[in-house]
Structures are given as structure tokens and as C-alpha cells.
């Protein structure tokens, strides 16, 4: 594993602290504003619970991403990169692009040179959204607010269109990507296979579990299910995916059994 320097850990700690301070600050501001406009703060309290539960499962791949990237960049840089702005897929592509460019101009590069180039490319290319917010977002948001005042119906149509577009784009990419990799798995980050069959099964399982939650909610009048429906759905669909992975990858069984054996062998020594 590549060396991580103390100063990078210090920056990482500062970044994590800054994010927590900023988030708490915005929560406090939102609660004060809610009270001022006469909004029931119970709604926001419920939002805190829902959002915390929802965010646990999708955060796990981010941790795994650090595990994959730390082999090349050490532990501190992936930690920072995946705590701010970045997203796993983007960071890996940026790292790969920087590595290939370096290889083409300096074939005998050192691991420090690779990290220096990779972290520069990763940092600079992700700044587009942040710079937009600093320069133009205030004006843009004021225009959106004006439109909301003058023509609420049009603004509703715009937000509906953006949500529909995001869902359509994401769903079509998942569906078509899944169908085109049936029988010929694509390679995914970390050298594992991404099976089209499992993508489609997971998507179907997610739809079915959410529909069942809706049914329980409506037919059996279990209103509490509403708050946990999406986390339950994500966990259930991932459990289905996990069950199918060994069926499609016999090599995975051997490796995961090895890993579990290793894990159990070290557990007594660390007192877990």
C-alpha cells in the first residue's frame, strides 16, 4: 500500500470536521426557519431519522471504494476524495486516466509520481459544480424563485421534468446496460464482474419489495412502513443480489470462503 503522510490525514480530519459543522449549521438554520414560518418541526425530526437510515446502505460502497483506491493511493487521499465532492466511479476513472497519461510520457514513473498526478487530476476536474455555485448559483436561484412566484405551474413542470428525466436516464442505463451484459459480464471497479442478469434481478427485486411495502401500508394500514420502505427495499434487493452472485461466479465462492476463514482466524487476536 502506498505511503500516506501525516499532513494528508490532518487535512482529511479538517475536511470531515468542516462537513459535520456545515451540516449541523444548516440543520439548525432549517429548524429555526421552520419554527418561524409555522411549519411543524416534527416533519423535520422525522426527516432526520429517515435520512440517517436511508444513507447507511448506499454509504457502504463508498467505504469499499476507499478499500479499492487505497491499494494505489494510500488510505488518506481516497478518504478525502470520497468524503468531498467526488463519487466512486468518477474518482476511479480520473485515477486511471492520470495513470495512463503518466505511463505514456514517463514509463519508469514512481508510485509518488502516480499519486501526485492522480490527485491533481481528481481535484481539478471535479470543481465545475462548486465553481458554478460560487459564481452563478445565487443569480440562477433568484431567477428560479421569481419564476416560482410568477408562474408556479411552469416551475412545477420544470421540477417534475428534471425528476422524470433523472429517473428515465438512470433507469434506461440500468435496464439497457443490464440487458447488454447478459451472458457476457462487464468488468467493474476492483476487478469484479458486473453481471447483467443480477442487475436486472436486483432491479426487479427492488420494484417488487417496494410494491409489497406499499401493499402492507395500504391494505393492512401499517403507516410506519412508509418511513422504512426504501431502506428495507434497498437491503432486500441487495440480499437477493448477494444470493445470486455465487451462482454466476463460482470463483467468488472459493475466494469469499477463503476471506471468511481468514477473518475468523484474526478475530480472536483483535478481540472483536
Amino acid at each position, binding site marked *: 500500500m502506498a505511503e500516506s503522510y501525516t499532513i494528508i490525514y490532518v487535512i482529511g480530519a479538517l475536511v470531515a470536521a468542516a*462537513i459535520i459543522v456545515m451540516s449541523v449549521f444548516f440543520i439548525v438554520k432549517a429548524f429555526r426557519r421552520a419554527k418561524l414560518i409555522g411549519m411543524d418541526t416534527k416533519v423535520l425530526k422525522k426527516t432526520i431519522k429517515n435520512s440517517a437510515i436511508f*444513507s447507511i446502505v448506499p454509504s457502504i460502497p463508498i467505504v469499499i471504494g*476507499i*478499500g479499492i483506491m487505497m491499494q494505489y493511493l494510500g488510505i488518506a487521499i481516497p478518504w478525502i476524495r470520497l468524503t468531498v465532492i467526488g463519487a466512486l466511479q468518477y474518482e476511479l476513472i480520473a485515477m486511471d486516466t492520470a495513470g495512463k497519461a503518466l505511463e505514456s510520457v514517463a514509463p519508469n*514513473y514512481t508510485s509518488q509520481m502516480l499519486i501526485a498526478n492522480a490527485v491533481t487530476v481528481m481535484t481539478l476536474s*471535479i470543481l465545475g459544480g462548486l465553481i458554478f*455555485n460560487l459564481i452563478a448559483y445565487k443569480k440562477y436561484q433568484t431567477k428560479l424563485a421569481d419564476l416560482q412566484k410568477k408562474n408556479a405551474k411552469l416551475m412545477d413542470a420544470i421540477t417534475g421534468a428534471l425528476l422524470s*428525466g433523472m429517473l*428515465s436516464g438512470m433507469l434506461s442505463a440500468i435496464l439497457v446496460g443490464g440487458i447488454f451484459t447478459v451472458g457476457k459480464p462487464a468488468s467493474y471497479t476492483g476487478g469484479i464482474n458486473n453481471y447483467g442478469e443480477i442487475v436486472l434481478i436486483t432491479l426487479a427485486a427492488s420494484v417488487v419489495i417496494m410494491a409489497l411495502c406499499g401493499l402492507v401500508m395500504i391494505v393492512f394500514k401499517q403507516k410506519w412502513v412508509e418511513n422504512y420502505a426504501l431502506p428495507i427495499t434497498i437491503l432486500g434487493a441487495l440480499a437477493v443480489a448477494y444470493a445470486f*452472485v455465487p451462482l454466476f461466479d463460482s470463483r467468488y465462492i472459493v475466494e469469499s470462503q477463503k476471506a471468511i476463514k481468514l477473518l475468523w482466524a484474526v478475530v480472536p487476536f483483535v478481540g472483536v
Partner: protein
Amino acid sequence: MTKDKNKTQTREQYNLQMHNYGRIFSWISMALILFVPVAYFIASKTVPSVKALVKCIPFLLGYFAVGLVEAVSYAPLLGPGGQYMSFITGNISNLKLPCSINSQAIAKVKQGSEEQELVSTVSIAVSSITTTIIIVIGLIPLFIFQEQIVTILNPISPYVIPAIFGGLTVVLAAKYYKTAAIPFISCIIICVGANLAGFGKVFDQSTMVIVGMIVSGLSTFILYKKNKI
């Protein structure tokens, strides 16, 4: 004095305050982010290869443009507080936005209302805290059992997005089926065409989200003009 001001604060004044705070946090974050490579150069006594960096310019510009497009298109969905936080903490389409949409659906807030903005802000803030804490907690076992953890959990990583978006579609389909039908069919056609032409990797999830938003914007505008929505 400030308390009195806050008591009579309009939505515009509140949003202005959010912009000011959001910008301060954005500047702090940008300074910290930009300091990471500089700190690495100093600590490792290494400088990056300028020739290799020049070769990465097309990639840099491409991703920079994607960031700009994302900021413009996500803004109406996130609200001021949510927008600043999301573009500081990242993982928007796979975590922050679905989390905010889910919270808005549960809270049953009206589109474009101030309540919607507040729910979105709180949702994204809590999501950011949760992820930051999970990452910090995850670093410890990762440091000790890196290989084993990655081996056990990595096989399900490609399936997290389908697991989120299948359920989310059920939640939103009933509400947005009118505006979603045309972009969905168009996106399927574009995706199939791209895969058949061998450009499947280019038209991945992040590209298709932008394509979907553009198609949906156009088709919804036509439907709006014809009074069909």
C-alpha cells in the same frame, strides 16, 4: 436586534442568508480540497509530470462541463442549502438526491414550497453527516482487514444503484408518469442505439441522467404549452 430581524425574515431574505453561508462553506471546502495535492507534493517531495497533466486536459474539461451541467439541473430539486452541501460533499445522484426525494415523498411537501426546501436541506445535511461518520468508522476495519472486507462486500457494489432506483421508481411513477413516459422511451432508444454502435460505456448512468433531463425538459415544455400537464 438579529433575533427581531429573523422574526420578520422573508423567504427571499432567508435564501440570501443561505447563499452567503453556502458560499463561505464552499470557499473553505475548495481551499481544503486544493490544498491536498499541494500538501502531497511538499510531503513526498514530488512534483507531478506536467506533460502527463497536459494529456489529461480533455478529461479535465469534460468532467468540468459535467459538473456545471449537474449544478444547473439539480438546483431546482435541491434548494439553496441542499445545493451548496451536495456540491461540497458529492455522491449526488447515487445518494444525496435519492435521499432528499425519499424524504420529500414521506413528508408530503408541496413542490416549490419553502417546506420542500427545508426538508431537502435537512435530508442532505443528515445524509452528509451519516456518510462522513460511516466512512470514518469504516476506515478502521478497512485498515486492518482491507483485502477481506473488499473481497466480501465488493461483489454487491455494482447492484446498489439498481437496488435504490427500482424502489424509487415505484414511489415516483404514480406522480410523474405523464412527464416521464416520453423521456423514458427516448432514453431506452438512445441507450440501445449507443450499445449497438459500441458506445455503451460512454452512455453510462451519469451521461444518461443528463440526456434524460434534456429530453424531459423539452418534452415537458411541449406538453405544458399544449396544456397536457
